[in-house]
């Protein structure tokens, strides 16, 4: 199976999880699917069988409402058995609508309230640096999340502390109700970060443009703007906020599965 097909299969998995649970955030999950796949496949040094090993990179999904995508990817790479996926949001499940770091192998932070992940990431980066660890801390945030004051507190803190082992990837899917289009790359650069823009849906481009930048040694924290489409590649999800936390009907489900086949 080529890898485009692998990621498509993951999207079908997420769709099935959300459909079964009648709960979840499909479009927000779909916009980060390609990013998560490339990060876990090619970038992050985390042993799925020893997800707490001290010598690991740390990854935080700060936009915790996209947890279904993270679960599908973690399961694909062997952090836990795929049988858990069908329990998503059900009584007794490890896998909730927002991830619980005390329950899910591979989840570093219990996110769900926006603007926390980058600040937790700063603390992880400080701790790892103090311990002499060469590991990286990668935080995936949503662009809507960048409204939060704690996000900008952390941006300034990371610059002041020269947290060169911190990477923030912004899923710029433009979904937020009242979002304005800011030049995040320019703003972050002016605040002392390294900054780049990538196409968040192009696997080979991500491998070429994102992975080496995350792995490279730096003197400043790194910001990567990932241009994405909310709900990619499902056309009806893009630009229709009604789908943000909607689950498909039986009829829609058949259409969506067909679109993803």
């Amino acid at each position, binding site marked *: 199976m080529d890898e485009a097909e692998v990621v498509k299969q993951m999207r079908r998995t997420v769709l099935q999880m959300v459909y079964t649970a009648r709960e979840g955030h499909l479009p927000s999950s779909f916009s980060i699917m390609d990013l998560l796949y490339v990060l876990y496949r090619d970038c992050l040094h985390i042993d799925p069988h020893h997800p707490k090993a001290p010598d690991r990179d740390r990854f935080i999904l700060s936009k915790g409402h996209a947890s279904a995508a993270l679960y599908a990817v973690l399961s694909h790479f062997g952090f836990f058995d795929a049988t858990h996926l069908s329990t998503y949001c059900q009584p007794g499940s490890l896998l909730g609508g927002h991830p619980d770091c005390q329950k899910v192998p591979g989840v570093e932070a*219990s996110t769900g309230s926006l603007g926390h992940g980058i600040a937790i990431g700063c603390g992880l980066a400080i701790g790892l640096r*103090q311990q002499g660890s060469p590991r990286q801390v990668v935080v995936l945030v949503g662009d809507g999340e960048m409204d939060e004051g704690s996000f900008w507190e952390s941006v300034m803190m990371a610059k002041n502390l020269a947290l060169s082992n911190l990477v923030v990837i912004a899923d710029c899917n433009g979904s937020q109700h009242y979002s304005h289009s800011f030049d995040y790359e320019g703003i972050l650069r002016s605040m002392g970060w390294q900054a780049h823009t990538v196409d968040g849906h192009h696997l080979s481009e991500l491998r070429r443009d994102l992975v080496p930048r995350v792995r490279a040694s730096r003197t400043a924290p790194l910001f990567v703007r990932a241009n994405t489409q909310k709900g990619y590649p499902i056309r009806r999800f893009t630009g229709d906020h009604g789908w943000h936390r909607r689950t498909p009907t039986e009829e829609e489900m058949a259409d969506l599965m067909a679109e993803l086949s």
Partner: protein
Amino acid sequence: MRAQFAATMTSLGSEDPSLFVLVGDIGAFGLRHFAAAYPGRFLNVGIREQAMASAAAGLAATGFFPVIHSITGFVVERCFEQIKNDFCYSGLPGNIVSVGGGIDYAAMGCTHHSYSDLALLKSLPGTQVFCIGSPHEFDRLFRASYRSGSMNYFRLADRAHGIAFRDEELAVGRSISVRTGHELTLLTAGELLTSCLEVASEIGGDRCEVIYSPSIKPFDAARVRASVTKTRRLLVAEEHSVLGGLGDEARRALDNSGFAYALTSLGIQDQFLRDYGPRKHLLEVAGIGPARLLQEARTLLERSP
């Protein structure tokens, strides 16, 4: 009290390489000796309390035992959600040391008062909450709990009550019987101990029993129950809202006790203390000044439970 905070950090810093202190500008000068001795384990993150709280949780996740410090309102009320999610829900150990709790910043107005801090942090699962009234208390209780794995909160009063305790009296979840008596139990925490002891002396004899409870959570319910079983009268005095503070703990301790008792709970009622002036004046406005305590104690003593 602030000097003891700095001294305890400096002393523990040499014993324990996992102690990490973060401040949000406030307290940076006071902690300069710690900062100089352990530069890799001290950060002044700037006026960014929310990021400080979450970053401290990140540090805890890499194995450090973090301490965050600022003025009560800024580090507790402003950061409540960070404390809830990033420490408590995530099961990470942490410590908050605040100054300016209650009405220590009397003339600075309500933005700088905090009489909800104990209730807020008590309400989060797994926390330990201490209302500290002397340097010795802080040193003992901090050392006993900072590595406990829970989120520990220490509200440091500006002024110490000046009463000396033995080391073994200062333990997590224990209160201290500072004076024994038979007719009225006075229960308090923090600097108000001074006023409570004055009340007991003024009334005289062995009529009043004074219980001092710096450990708000866990709370020493057994000692309150035992005392009130004897006195049948309880006066609680706290520099905190009457909603969710020490008085509520006492009430819970006496739930289903099976005997009648009279209880007066004095603290800040459901109001903002909008007046200015010295702390002494604000205590009077709040209804927890020495004269009011004495008056309420006498009223209780006249009542048969």
